């Protein structure tokens, strides 16, 4: 990953806007922002972010690569689409935010320990294993992200819900041993590998 980052820095030197245009989903629309601030004002979680979309777009144009790719703002987006609906310049802001998050993650510049990023990673890895989400291992994996003690505490606090789910036959304890997968697991893995190859090529991550 570091190599990908280095080569990106090399290729675009100080033109971060061009880098975003080439590598980020809908990145070519960043230059069309007219800095009206409607997105920032429309975001229901706006005050929980370090940088509003308006600021992120300004930072991209000002070439602030490290600050943008290290920002946790893109991970805070809940995809409510308020900004897209309201943007007078019709920028697909939500898509750009997710595109930036994805790009920062792939370059491994996204903030470490960012809960949304961690959970998304956990979810992806879980889903990819058997082609379907194993709810038991996903939940347990999530509980134990922050270590054994806090994991046990969390599991115990949730035990009545777990029991209820079990009695209602919504939770099978046997799933802990790997669980069941999709019918053609081999085929599924092949599909995912091919998709990754295509995306890597498109976004310049293939060797």
């Amino acid at each position, binding site marked *: 990953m570091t190599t990908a980052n280095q080569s990106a820095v090399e290729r675009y030197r100080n*033109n971060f806007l061009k880098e975003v245009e080439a590598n980020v989903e809908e990145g070519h629309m960043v230059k*069309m922002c007219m800095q009206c601030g409607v997105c920032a004002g429309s975001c229901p979680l706006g005050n929980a972010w370090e940088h509003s979309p308006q600021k992120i777009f300004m930072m991209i144009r000002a070439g602030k690569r490290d600050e943008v790719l290290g920002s946790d703002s893109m991970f805070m987006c809940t995809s409510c689409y308020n900004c897209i609906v309201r943007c007078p310049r019709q920028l697909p802001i939500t898509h750009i935010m997710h595109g930036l998050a994805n790009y920062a993650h792939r370059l491994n510049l996204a903030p470490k320990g960012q809960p949304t990023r961690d959970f998304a990673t956990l979810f992806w890895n879980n889903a990819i294993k058997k082609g379907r989400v194993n709810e038991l291992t996903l939940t347990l994996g999530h509980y134990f992200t922050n270590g054994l003690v806090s994991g046990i505490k969390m599991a115990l606090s949730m035990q009545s819900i777990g029991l209820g789910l079990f009695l209602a036959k919504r939770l099978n304890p046997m799933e802990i041993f790997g669980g069941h997968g999709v019918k053609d697991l081999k085929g599924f893995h092949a599909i995912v590998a091919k998709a990754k190859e295509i995306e890597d090529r498109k976004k310049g991550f293939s060797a």
Partner: protein
Amino acid sequence: MADNKFAAYICSGCGIGDAMKVPQLEAIAKKEGKMAIVKSHPFLCNAEGVQTIKDDIANEAVTHVCIAACSRRAKTEAFQFDGVAMSRANLREGVLWVVATGKEHDEVRQEMAADYVRMGCAEVKKMTQPAGNVKESSSKRILVVGGGMSGMTAAMEIAATGYEAVLVEKTGALGGMTAQLWKRQPFKEPYAAAQETGVAEMAAKIAANPKIKLHLNSTIAETSGAPGRFVIQVAQESGTVTEETVGAIVQATGFTTYDMAKLPELGGGQPNVVDQAGLEKLALQANGGAIKRADGKEVKSVVFVQCAGQRDKLKEDGGTHLSYCSGHCCGTSIKQATYFKDQNPDIDTVIVYDDLRVPGMGEDFYRSAQEKGVIFTKGKASKVTGGDSCKVSFKDLILDEENTIAADLVVLATGQVPNAGVDLEAWNPVVTAADGGDAAAKTARDEMKTISILNLNYRQGPDMPQFKHGFADSHFICFPYETRRTGIYAAGPVRRPMDILQATDDATGAALKAIQAVENASVGRAAHPRSGDLSFPTARLEGCTQCKRCTVECPFGAIDEDERRFPKFNEERCRRCGTCMGACPVRVISFENYSVDTVGSQVKAIEIPEEDEEKPRILVLACENDAYPALDMAGLARLNYSAFVRIIPVRCLGSVNTIWITDAMNSGYDGVMMMGCKKGDDYQCHFVKGSELAHYRMSKIGDTLTQLGLEPERVVTQEVAITDNQRVVTLINDYVAELEKLGPSPMKGFG
């Protein structure tokens, strides 16, 4: 007077006949109004009613008509009788619609109607129908001063309508500032890319147009006369002088760019820091190729600094540069950034702006530049250093931090400074001192005169008055093309900051205004806002004391002094506001149909009830431009105001002669209220200064009232806008209540 025959016609339509006793009104017109013929009609404005009046004019030799029906602003087409003097008593909007309904109000309603009939009869007896003053030799040619985009457009529009234009240009070629541009901002669909200026084509068309006479390398040595008979001395650079006679003038003298040397903190004067005009020069040199700096290096990165030396604080608040926005510079910088991007998309172009203002279709152009990759950064530049690698320090207003960008070239977007000639406010004291024999003032006067554009020989000074920030005069809020020099119209950036597209529109408007002016002047008609008025002021010079108030106070510079120092009216410059009439302390100035007598006789015509009747009488002098329509609209909306007021429309509050006030107080009125337009910097007075003068004059009337033993509160002056139809009602009712508290005027019964 022997030949005059007076007639009154009372309409009982629109419900007037139901609410008022029309026979009594007829009797009043006959007995008190001394009308030879008095008739009433149930529908006076219909064909039959109008025919009645026409028949009387034809068969009974009626010369003066008083129509007691609706407001003078209604049914003007029906009640139009050529060659006959006419007054209108406002029984509908002025009485029927504003006095509360119901039997208990019948008495005051009838009294009000009766007074209006008395006033209408009294007024018409003092009126003469103006005959007009046709000028056979009036010139219909139009002088255009300045051969830039505005001037060329004005000349071409004038010629296109069939009039002759005389175009005077100071330099040796047409085109002005536009000719110095590589391209202009887009003015045609899809507004996406800079376009050719088209100056060469326009200049060729002008040269080939037989209706346009062109003077290059020429200035105006002198302008004398008035609309319809301006005599212009056109001085060639070579020294020869040509005389041109024209009917009106369009001044399109444009602007100069704000001097960059005044902006040392933004790098003004340092190498590789240019203003927008400087960049156009580089673009013209590049001729479509790579733009190079003065030192020959190809520009690879460029930063535009918007609002350089503009939108500063006002001078009085400590600002040192232009305090206004020049309007075109954002669009111009966008255009110039695309010069680079169109030639080479890899050139870094950054525009540092505070507020991006792209009027008209500029928003499309802005987007197209964004698509081409021009970077827009919201920030405020604090420091620019020139040199091989220029540095622009600015505060990023989005990220709230200081930042610096390096660039090969920095372009400062400086503003427009109007070429409006001599500032009359500075000029007048210097001339007064010079006339008093001060040698230094004489030198200063001659020095000031060198920048004059029109060199008018008016006593008010050699150029148009200047508006805020030194722009040429304009009735900015209501009638932007109008100036205080009748027949002289300002067009383009000399009037207010603007871009080429706006300037061409502006020039077209001013050209049409000038055409109206020459047509009006040729038949002795007034120009805006009393368009079509044939009356003009005359002075009984044997009574004149040569006090010069009329010459000084005329907002339009219409009055000169003759060799015996008496006022000399230039009828064609006159706008018929009557400010001179209001100013005259000996009341020798009058119009045929509007004079101290026409209003004074109305003031005296009404019946003042005895003190014990507890019916106060309040005189309202309402400006006919805004206040009177507002009062009419109050009637239309059926809003009720006190039936104790008697309203007389006046041409402008400036025409109010203080004798009307003293007469009213002496006759036993309880109060006088004047309603005029907004005064001050953002005036709405149609005659610019009238309202202000009235306020000033009334501020001096307090002493007179005290001498008469009256409270100064009995005379008030109010500012009213045309939209104030609800407010006028409150103003009147509050004032009536206040006067009732004050008690009846002690002058009652002496009148």
